């Protein structure tokens, strides 16, 4: 019998390569996923990145230290304030600058508000990816109020250039404290509403519980950080473990996943950590607003000439999406000799293949949403 006749009528499933992106709506930007599928089951995922590469690091070697700040805005563009903050702290540590109290408090206030805004975006986008269209309109509505506060403070809505080396670009405008308190009062009620419409919605829970479980050892070996790591039950928050700025003065708890529904470390846990972190951020902002010193010049500590001494520094801090690190080598000139950015979402995305294998293509969307990637930071 010939070979063709022997195989007659035998259906054989073969692996198929599927390209998801770069224009796929659930890839949160321009990311291409090369998925090898066996039927509907994913057997391998390869993220192809670089579509948003803008030579951030090389560019920084050609501009002065303060001029780098607007570019750090554009890395993780959903958390520009935090990027500014980490970069400014890195250079300040290199130059040994003491900051006025008021500056530290304002920085914490804006950084935590930005954390809320970033998490709101993550929650809304994840809900949208899984088919819930309402949550994103609600999270955008509340994010808009934070952006309005920022616009009122520094004149920009997305790319602030607010936190400078040794200070801030503007002092807080009058009535900021009142507006911020009003927002927090309003926002605390909204978190309850998110819980009702999304977090404990049965359909949402069924799509995310048990899906894409990230074991602790895998998370640590891949260098995951932020809500992705804490979702697996690791209590690692740089604001607690290596307190920087003035985070040790406030009362709050790091949000750690508990595996409330499903297995510990699943998509739902990573989602829930963000919701809980918003609550903790509200607590921090409330305390910071109450303790905010009345007096203090935000420009007082800004050096006239920013020429860090020869040397190098690595400084990391907790961004909404994980540990953000800046490694700066200074040769004593006003331009950084080398600037390396350790981006959290790059490491968080690298774990995708590990946790999405064995799940269906529709679950990849949920897993990607729970990783909360920003391509601006991954590609830089």
């Amino acid at each position, binding site marked *: 019998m010939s070979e063709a006749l022997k195989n007659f009528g035998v259906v054989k499933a073969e692996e198929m390569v599927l390209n998801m992106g770069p224009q796929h709506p659930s890839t949160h930007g321009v990311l291409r996923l090369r998925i090898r599928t066996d039927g509907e089951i994913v057997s391998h995922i390869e993220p192809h990145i670089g579509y948003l590469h803008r030579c951030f690091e090389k560019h920084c070697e050609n501009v002065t230290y303060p001029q*780098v700040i607007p570019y750090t805005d554009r890395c993780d563009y959903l958390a520009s304030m935090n990027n500014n903050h980490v970069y400014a702290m890195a250079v300040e540590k290199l130059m040994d600058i003491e900051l006025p109290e008021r500056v530290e408090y304002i920085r914490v206030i804006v950084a935590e508000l930005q954390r809320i805004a970033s998490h709101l975006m993550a929650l809304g986008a994840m809900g949208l990816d899984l088919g819930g269209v309402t949550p994103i309109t609600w999270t955008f509505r509340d994010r808009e109020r934070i952006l309005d506060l920022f616009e009122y403070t520094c004149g*920009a809505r997305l790319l602030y*250039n607010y936190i400078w080396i040794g200070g801030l670009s*503007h002092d807080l405008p009058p009535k900021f404290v009142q507006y911020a308190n009003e927002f927090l009062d309003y926002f605390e009620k909204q978190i309850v*509403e998110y819980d009702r419409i999304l977090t404990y919605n*049965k359909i949402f*829970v069924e799509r995310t*519980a048990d899906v894409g479980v990230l074991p602790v050892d895998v998370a640590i070996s891949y260098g995951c950080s932020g809500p992705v790591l804490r979702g697996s039950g690791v209590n690692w928050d740089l604001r607690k473990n290596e307190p920087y700025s003035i985070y040790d003065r406030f009362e709050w708890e790091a949000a750690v996943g508990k595996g409330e529904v499903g*297995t510990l470390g699943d998509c739902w846990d990573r989602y829930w950590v963000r919701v809980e972190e918003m609550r903790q951020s509200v607590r921090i902002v409330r305390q910071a607003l109450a303790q905010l010193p009345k007096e203090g010049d935000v420009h007082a500590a800004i050096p006239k000439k920013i020429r860090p001494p020869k040397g190098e520094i690595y400084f990391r801090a907790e961004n909404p999406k994980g540990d953000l690190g800046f490694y700066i080598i200074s040769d004593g000139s006003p331009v950084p000799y080398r600037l390396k950015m350790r981006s959290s979402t790059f490491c968080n995305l690298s774990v995708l293949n590990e946790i999405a294998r*064995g799940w269906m293509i529709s679950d990849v969307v949920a897993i990607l949403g729970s990783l909360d990637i920003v391509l601006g930071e991954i590609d830089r």
Partner: protein
Amino acid sequence: MAVVVKTYEPKFWDRFYLPAILKGLAITLTRIFVRKDTILYPEHKHVPAPGYRGLHRLNKHADGRIKCVACEMCATACPSNCITIEPSAAPWDDGEERYPIKFEINLLRCIYCGFCELACPKDAIELTEVYDFANYTRDSLVIDMDGLLEVYEVTSQGSIYTRQNAGQPVKVAQQL
């Protein structure tokens, strides 16, 4: 292969999904009675807070003379090199000795960081609240000195968006 464990098991009634959908609808329906947060954009414009960093303008003295002295501090401070200035000796005898004969800003390169405004020793360059200056060609988004001075004329008489919302036809984009 990744860990695929099932510990979450939905109850029999949850399998219908109807209660979950109805519950969600009930929550969204309550929103009908809340004041809406959106504005109807082209008819009603968002008025930015003072200090908003939008389109640039070049300020003038009370006598109509340009404030800029072409010191090129803004061009030096600019992280994206979007400002081009050509200085020249001023035609007037009193006052500043230099003034720009060419002052060009490439709005597509500009990142609206506001460093030019801060670097300026004469308060000549300023960022205004204008945000809707999209256009069709790249050439039209390179704004020259006349354009910048015209933006000053339009924006120096109070917020243009408040006036537009009040029904006055104020346009900035046309001279770009």
